[in-house]
């Protein structure tokens, strides 16, 4: 067995009593669970959207994430790790499963008519060159393994420190760092192949 050097005390995230009290209530109180959804919907939605690049798919997957969280909430334990990390983990698994099932459909869609891709919520939808950059980047990202996609998205797109990424992915900090390095190189190769 390998000891993981991660503990709540090493994280910047706070796991306050109020949040844990909300989690406890949400096991039995629909209103409390709705509050969890409202607090985290934007962060989780943003993460999912930056992974899948489609507004409608994001809505569906965000619903799946919180439904999965609802089902798993009775087994959620306070181990000093904030609820947000737990939700990011569920979101990562949800997106990865969706990506695995839709890999070829996604690639074909981007290769084809970009106007149908649902990317109208991009930062600057009126700028064709920016749109092309985003789509090229996304296509390269999608061609990576799920582990590489996940670690890149959590760290670079969501801005989570490696310690927090390690908590979300359930692995060691060292593993996250090495995986990030390999993922960057893999992404670089894919970007070069597409030029």
């Amino acid at each position: 067995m390998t000891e993981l050097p991660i503990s709540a005390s090493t994280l910047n995230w706070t796991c306050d009593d109020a949040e844990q009290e909300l989690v406890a209530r949400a096991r039995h109180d629909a209103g409390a669970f709705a509050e969890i959804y409202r607090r985290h919907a934007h962060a989780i939605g943003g993460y999912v959207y930056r992974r899948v690049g489609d507004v409608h798919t994001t809505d569906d997957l965000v619903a799946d994430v919180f439904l999965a969280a609802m089902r798993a909430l009775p087994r959620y334990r306070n181990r000093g790790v904030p609820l947000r990390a737990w939700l990011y983990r569920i979101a990562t698994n949800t997106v990865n499963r969706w990506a695995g099932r839709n890999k070829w459909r996604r690639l074909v869609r981007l290769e084809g008519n970009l106007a149908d891709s649902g990317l109208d919520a991009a930062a600057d939808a009126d700028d064709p060159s920016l749109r092309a950059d985003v789509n090229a980047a996304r296509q390269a990202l999608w061609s990576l393994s799920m582990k590489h996609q996940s670690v890149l998205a959590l760290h670079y797109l969501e801005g989570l420190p490696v310690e927090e990424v390690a908590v979300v992915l359930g692995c060691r900090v060292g593993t996250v760092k090495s995986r990030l390095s390999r993922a960057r190189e893999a992404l670089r190769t894919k970007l070069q192949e597409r030029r």
Partner: protein
Amino acid sequence: MLGKNDSVDSALDSLRSESWTGNTPNRAIEEKLMTEFHVQRTKGGIRRYRTLLIALAAVLVGSVGFAAAGGTDLITQWVTVRIVGTSGSGDDMTVDLMLTPVEDGTASGSAVIQSDGKNLALSVEQTDDGQKSLSVSIDAAGAEGGSTYEVSANTVTLTELKPGAASKLMDAAGRPDAETVKVEIESGAAVPADQLQGRDDVIETEWQDGDGVWHGMKLVPSPRANGRMIYTLLREAPGALPVLGAIQTNAAIAEVLDAYEDDGTLVVEATTADGADVVLEVTQPNTRSPAKSNAASRTADR
């Protein structure tokens, strides 16, 4: 981090620039969650009750082994009791559960399972004349009380469980009901002598697959001389109780916190008896034999 003009950073910057402009919180999603919440809480209560009852009585047993040393029941065989048919109201129901043994060799226990909005309570009792009686109570959702049906399983005895044994649904007066319920008692593989375990040693938990479907799972320990524990993972299913794989730990597992499938890997998060958190992975969850599984485990001190 590489330079500002690095192609990787440029690509990541462009993706990061995409801001989520969806409706959050989304009213439709929130309503969907609230609807599902009430469904799940109802199921959850039933599931916990079922888990508790089954954990108390565990799973068992063709012939109940009563160990001479220590006087503890040992699991000698896995069997599944299954009811297939229609309830008195004509609704389809399928109930999968485990037969429960007691120390004197009779079976007694109950489980509550929800099926199509119905609460089904089942008990297995040994009658005075040595025959076994299965009782099924069906409480229709929204209806007061409920109907109780007696399911006779006289062709099956505790020590001679026969796969596929069937019986007709009986009404309260002992008359066969027009709507029959088939009771199947399926024998699984016998437990090897060196892997016999008491019912209290079996850990009951659930596992969520890649499609979000929950499955019952049991962790059956096999202590080893060097102090390491090997747990065989069994998936609850009619009949055979397929082996999902095997995992090793340094200390006995006290509680499973979560179990889910991640990219083809079955991940089990648990705590050990000495308080440590462990993350256990079975990389080939469909392996039939634990000896062939490619299992790995690691400990997370989180």
